[in-house]
């Protein structure tokens, strides 16, 4: 198995959990399923050895809730607004750029960022985020 899907987020902070929800929806898919619930630098170890990696995270960019942004991480740096896409420490974009600097990016890395509605404490996704999660999960499943 050479593909890995990593959901990033906090289960107890509303729509921040959307990446984790996508990973749950992908159960049985042809990929290693991982979650990153702490700080994102840990992703460098989670994706080690995989040819193709898909990251799913919540974003808080001011876009319309439910907006799905897909980024193929190639030569270009990630847009700065993704640096604070989550409330985690170094930020997903920082972790990706750190990996790039020390040659630890996987050969193929795609990021799905989902604009959430609410990030306050509590379980359960908003309906908007849940719908976006289902759509992202379906797209990832098709692509695997």
């Amino acid at each position, binding site marked *: 198995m050479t593909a890995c899907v990593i959901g990033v987020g*906090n*289960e*107890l902070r509303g729509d921040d959990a959307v990446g984790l929800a996508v990973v749950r929806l992908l159960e049985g898919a042809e990929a290693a399923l991982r979650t*990153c*619930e*702490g*700080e994102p*630098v*840990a992703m*460098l*170890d989670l994706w080690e050895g995989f040819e193709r990696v898909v990251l799913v995270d919540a974003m808080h960019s001011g876009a319309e809730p439910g907006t799905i942004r897909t980024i193929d991480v190639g030569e270009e740096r990630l847009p700065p607004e993704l640096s*604070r896409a989550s*409330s*985690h*420490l*170094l930020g997903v974009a*920082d972790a990706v*750029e*750190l990996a790039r*600097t*020390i040659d630890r990016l996987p050969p193929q890395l795609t990021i799905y960022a989902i604009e959430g509605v609410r990030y*306050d*404490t*509590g379980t359960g996704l908003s309906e908007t985020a849940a719908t976006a999660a289902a759509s992202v999960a379906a797209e990832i499943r098709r692509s695997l």
Partner: protein
Amino acid sequence: MSRTRTIRTDYLARVEGEGGMLVRMRGDEVAEVQLRIYEPPRFFEAFLRGRDYTEAPDITARICGICPVAYQTSACLAMEQLADVTVDGQLRALRRLLYCGEWIESHTLHVFMLHAPDFLGVTSAVELAQVNRELVENALRLKKLGNEIMRVVGGREVHPINVRVGGWYSVPTSETLETLVPELEWAKAAAIDAVEITSGFDFPKLEQEYQFVALDADGEYPIDRGSRLISSTGLDVPISSFLEHVIEEHVEHSNALHATLAGRGTYLVGPLARYALHHDLLSPDARAAAAAAKLEPVVKNPFKSIVVRAVELVHACDEALRLIREYEQPEQPSLPVVPRAGFGHGATEAPRGVCYHRYRLESDGTIADAKIIPPTSQNQKMIEQDLYDFVVAHADLPDEELRLRCEQAIRNYDPCISCATHFLKLEIKRT
């Protein structure tokens, strides 16, 4: 006519969570310093009410992605204290080992990725990797080891799922733990190097007369438990009376409560406090590393906290090695716990300082009330005092440099603002 200066950081980078800082000056006089924490406070305490006591370790572990073990362990200790159960022997040794994993992970992240850039003239860990790749790669390897300890003992790297009130769901074999030894030996050498490297940094001048507060763990360097709360000013009280001595108050500019010691004022928890109060209990090699770096037994310059963290890294590696060497797999993974009505108290030394929990349980084990006092909320007032004194001493610096130094001063505390509540932003106003 005096000149107004406002120095402000709306979003403070390289701290856990988000918050902000405001310094207001009239000429070269500092009128006001505020550390602002925005996110609405204390949701988790409300979230815990009505839950079963067995759920507290898992729920509180999610308060912070960096120090889940601190929350889990403090919650377990509180529940066990109420049930009159003491987790000791090898079950407790595993708890301390898990906690060493968290210290290694958290201290590494802060020393190398978050705080070192301030001293090395780069703006981030990414830039640091561009100029000193080896340093960052070593940091990642150290951090991975911390994660690995948490995976082997805790069942998962973040939010360990193997932890329960009374002990563990399952315990590792000696052979499994021994697989960690070679990497721990490398880590110890890397940590000793880190003490030497960080001690060579150029430290901004600031000497503070701190009131240091830490747990007392009956002859051990305090990590995973402590029976008493002590201070450099003579406080020495049981953990069960924590709330009689730590007074929390709401301030307008922050969503996290400010803490003081009753009748004693502002205090400091964390590495500087542990080191000052328990220097002699560090492992011999950790003490030797500190001595070689000419680090005094009581450090009063908060910017040197980065060196103290590195010394604690050496200690955490030594402790982990000792615990693995002495490990004998326990027959039972946990002790029976029967809940009863009343108050339970627990405190541990999170990487950032004392993390205190108190729960009130109903007789069936339902949580009726929860109170959690994380280290960053205890340090908030001291952070503001450091900022105030630093700005007074360095008011002649240009705004941009002053702002950067103030941010660095905040990072001395490795503030976990998502624990104190969440989110940070810096502002210096001169009038």
